[in-house]
């Protein structure tokens, strides 16, 4: 049977991996190529590479570093950051991405999901949604968590699946960087509505958080950044632990 996936996330800015809390207060961590190789060796099931400021600075994603990473990593690589057109898909796929993550670009132009799914296949289109609670409603945010779009997140996620997204990365802004566990409530609410794989993001602090996460039916993968970057938890160590807890893992 298929395993649950552990996915370290490389948030890249100006060629360095960085990490913030609640999407703010960013600090420098490491060279992305070095870090990616390390995760690959440690048994990461996949890597996500976000050019986090591409969208804010309104410029195309850096493909140079992406190529450097992709040349050395032989596990699936999802890439995101300022993906607005099919041309952007093309560019990052040619630089070594296997899947492309769309976020604000798809909110501005939802047809991007359909067009990309048709051209590159559903498996290639990962819908990434940044969600926070506003007055008791799940709301979609953009610009790295700075801007409330007013869009209901559950509606948008369901629409994204219908339009052909092959996977969902659900980033909870409310739990991001807080390290008190994934946003289980939000994940349960979303998992009830869709059948594409869900990658949970935001809030992992300890190994037990992943055990709780994988109890939710419909969650296929856990994504985290800082706990891996700062070596609070080793990817390999985590996967062995989860396997011991009876969760199906590739170790």
């Amino acid at each position, binding site marked *: *049977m*298929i*395993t649950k*996936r552990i996915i370290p996330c490389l948030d890249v800015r100006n060629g360095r991996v960085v990490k913030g809390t609640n999407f703010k207060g960013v600090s420098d961590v490491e060279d992305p190529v070095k870090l990616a190789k390390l995760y*690959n060796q440690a048994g990461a*099931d996949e890597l996500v590479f976000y050019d986090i400021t591409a969208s804010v600075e309104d410029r195309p994603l850096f493909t140079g570093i992406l190529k450097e990473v*992709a*040349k*050395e990593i*032989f*596990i*699936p*690589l999802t890439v995101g950051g300022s993906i607005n057109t099919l041309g952007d898909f093309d560019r990052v*796929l*040619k*630089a*070594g*991405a*296997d899947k492309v993550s769309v976020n604000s670009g798809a909110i501005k132009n939802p047809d991007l999901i359909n067009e990309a799914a048709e051209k*590159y*296949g*559903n*498996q*290639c289109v990962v819908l990434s949604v940044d969600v926070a609670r506003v007055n008791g409603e799940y709301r979609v945010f953009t610009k790295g968590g700075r801007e409330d779009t007013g869009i209901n997140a559950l509606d948008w996620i369901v629409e994204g699946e219908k339009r052909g997204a*092959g*996977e969902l990365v659900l980033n909870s802004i409310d739990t991001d960087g807080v390290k008190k566990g994934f946003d289980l409530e939000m994940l349960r609410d979303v998992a009830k509505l869709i*059948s*594409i*794989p869900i990658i949970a993001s935001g809030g992992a602090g300890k190994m037990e958080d992943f055990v709780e996460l994988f109890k939710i039916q419909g969650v*296929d993968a856990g994504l985290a950044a800082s706990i891996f970057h700062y070596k609070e938890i080793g990817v390999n160590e985590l996967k062995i632990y989860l396997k011991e807890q009876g969760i199906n893992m*590739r170790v």
Partner: protein
Amino acid sequence: MIGIIDYGVGNLFSLKSSLDYLGLESVVTNEEAILRKTDRIILPGVGAFKDAYDKLDKIGLIPVLGEIIKDGKPLLGICLGMQLLFDKSYEHGECRGLGYINGDIIPMKRVVDEQLKIPHIGWNELKIADKSNPLIKYTKEGDFVYFVHSYMGSNCESSLVAYSEYGAKVPAIVSKDNIYGCQFHPEKSGEVGLKILRAFSEI
């Protein structure tokens, strides 16, 4: 020299990178003359079956491939490239394939439990059906490989080398004479995948 057939479907970057990483010389091409000079060929592919078959046909490589494999040159199909090796596919209606491997390509939905997600995305274990196959000389039972697909091989028992369980027995590696196919992506399957590519280079 390994020839990677470039017929406009899918991403060849990681396949080329993984061969580079292994120190294996390769060339990405759609030119008949170059393909004839290589000593083995990889047929990659992502996307829809008919579209891919038509593209291969349009650049005139179907008869060329047929001649090349008759000489015994090893050919490895990956993902959709593996599916193209089969007799026919039932993806969006019936479509003929290259016919190098006996069997059909069918929608996974037809055989897999409704509760399981389709596409079959992620890492799954290999169960070995034919230990003697040279493509898996460095592979062992239980090794994990990375799959992304919604259609699968069927009626291909005579060519089955390895399979995975996903609500059904999903053919993972098939082989007949000098023809090999992987449903999963060896270029995305970490060390296990690299070993399969190395084994292919040594056939």
